[in-house]
């Protein structure tokens, strides 16, 4: 398990002129908002860095931020082929929880949860981390047993989790269909009160702004086309903006990990799958928590804007197309209406797909590779967003010290050789 006192690094921004507050807002209002500064510089690559992070999503930016703020590595860059947060960071349903079954999972997700708490202040950016609770519901005897197993483990790992009876669920979520005669009646559930959601774009922007403040170069619209090595050592990366020398490269490119691995001539046990999500039109609040159901296969929350945000499982085939097949939303919405009849007369406003990389054991990879100085952070499947701060924090530690800390050890690539997997399949069901 994670040590309870985490080194969060520098808190707030060094450049006070850029500091956000109600006062800066008022001051700027007086100036008709002409004086706001760039959230981050649009840097051009230097010839050489101490480390380069490939991938400007939440995990990559968090990694860079903690490298700078915890490990004082500020001569580093984040390379993003498109725009910051344009991958799964900006395409997920923003659910945050740490109530995992296996110790290894609990360790890293709870590590992340502790960082989420107070992250807005760390970054001086309101990421709207809203601890509205995550309620996972059970629909059968079998699921009730699984639930009991999970809650016991979660509690003993020091993570909050409460079992709710159908009556308590009825009170907690008035719009849920509690009719005992439906196909998959709601027989109970367990709630992590500290769970909830955050504003996904803000997480990327907040990390980018804070990292930039410490001197990290954030380079957008720059695609990596090759990795330079000398024997088994990384010496640099080739990009559309030219060669960048570096001895440490951290790859955090969910969805495209295999593509980068190919460039390095190594392999990953990963399949890229479409994950679909959708939102309804905004309405006044009707749901003030997050609901997950494995049996009927969907999860739902309501955003601060008022949109109902829904997701389900991945499509069944490999894809890099950021789009899935219609039957998935069809089944997702049938399940949603079955559990929440009020949704029937709402309307789907937006629908989209992301590419998630899935591992055989539904657990991530945070690992060194056979190539010295090349590190991978991938395989988060459908559950990556919730881990963002923890993933970045642990990965930064791995890159800075070139050895995994106790949280990272179980997530090394060699587990697929030994077979000592962290199998969240049985446990996870609909993860995200």
């Amino acid at each position: 398990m994670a040590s309870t006192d985490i080194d969060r690094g520098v808190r707030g921004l060094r450049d006070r002129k850029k500091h956000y507050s109600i006062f800066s807002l008022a001051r700027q209002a007086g100036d008709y908002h002409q004086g706001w500064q760039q959230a981050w510089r649009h840097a051009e690559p230097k010839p050489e860095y101490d480390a380069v992070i490939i991938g400007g999503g939440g995990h990559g930016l968090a990694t860079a931020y903690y490298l700078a703020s915890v490990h004082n590595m500020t001569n580093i860059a984040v390379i993003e082929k498109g725009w910051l947060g344009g991958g799964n960071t900006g395409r997920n349903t923003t659910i945050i929880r740490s109530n995992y079954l296996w110790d290894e999972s609990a360790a890293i997700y709870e590590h992340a949860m502790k960082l989420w708490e107070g992250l807005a202040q760390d970054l001086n950016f309101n990421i709207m981390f809203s601890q509205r609770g995550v309620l996972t519901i059970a629909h059968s005897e079998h699921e009730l047993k699984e639930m009991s197993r999970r809650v016991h483990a979660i509690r003993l790992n020091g993570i909050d989790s409460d079992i709710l009876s159908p009556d308590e669920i009825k009170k907690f979520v008035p719009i849920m269909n509690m009719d005992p005669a439906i196909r998959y009646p709601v027989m109970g559930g367990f709630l992590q009160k500290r769970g909830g959601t955050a504003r996904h774009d803000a997480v990327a922007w907040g990390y980018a702004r804070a990292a930039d403040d410490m001197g990290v170069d954030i380079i957008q619209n720059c695609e990596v086309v090759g990795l330079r090595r000398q024997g088994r050592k990384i010496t640099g990366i080739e990009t559309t903006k030219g060669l960048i020398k570096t001895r440490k490269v951290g790859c955090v490119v969910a969805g495209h990990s295999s593509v980068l691995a190919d460039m390095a001539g190594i392999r990953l046990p990963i399949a890229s799958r479409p994950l679909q999500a959708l939102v309804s039109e905004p309405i006044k609040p009707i749901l003030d928590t997050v609901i997950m159901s494995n049996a009927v296969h969907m999860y739902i929350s309501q955003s601060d804007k008022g949109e109902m945000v829904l997701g389900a499982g991945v499509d069944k085939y490999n894809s890099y197309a950021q789009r899935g097949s219609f039957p998935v939303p069809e089944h997702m919405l049938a399940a949603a209406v079955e559990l929440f009849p009020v949704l029937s007369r709402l309307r789907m406003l937006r629908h989209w797909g992301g590419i998630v990389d899935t591992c055989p054991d539904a657990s991530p990879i945070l690992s060194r590779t056979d190539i010295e100085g090349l590190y991978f952070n991938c395989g988060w499947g459908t559950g990556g967003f919730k881990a963002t701060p923890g993933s970045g924090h642990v990965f930064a530690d791995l890159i800075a010290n070139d050895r995994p800390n106790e949280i990272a050890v179980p997530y090394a690539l060699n587990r697929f050789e030994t077979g000592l997997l962290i199998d969240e399949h049985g446990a996870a069901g609909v993860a995200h």
Partner: protein
Amino acid sequence: MLEIKCPYCGPRDEEEFSCGGEAHIARPLSENSLSDKEFADYLFYRDNPRGVFLERWRHAAGCRRWFNVARDTLTHHILEIYPMGAKPVSKAGRAAYNANWRRDSQAEIAAQPASQKTNKTSSAKR
């Protein structure tokens, strides 16, 4: 929703099919001397190309037959559909087959009886 042309039943909706992942994964014969690491290539490591992918599908709600598909994972265009035990014939399909790292993995070599190195039926997944 994909439309997949079952070699027997013709074009049907994706919903009728199940996807079996990477095709042509040779199963190491029992009498093998693979290290755990080499065996993991067979057990866990899968090709995951951004582009032409050779994969196995089964017409689950139809004739229940398995077959191979060459599909572009970026465009979702289906380039070729060919039977179990056969190899792709399209140019792109052949290229994808030969480019696969697995072709010269220890696990794949261990799937070849010393006697019949080029035997096809010994492992229909190939």
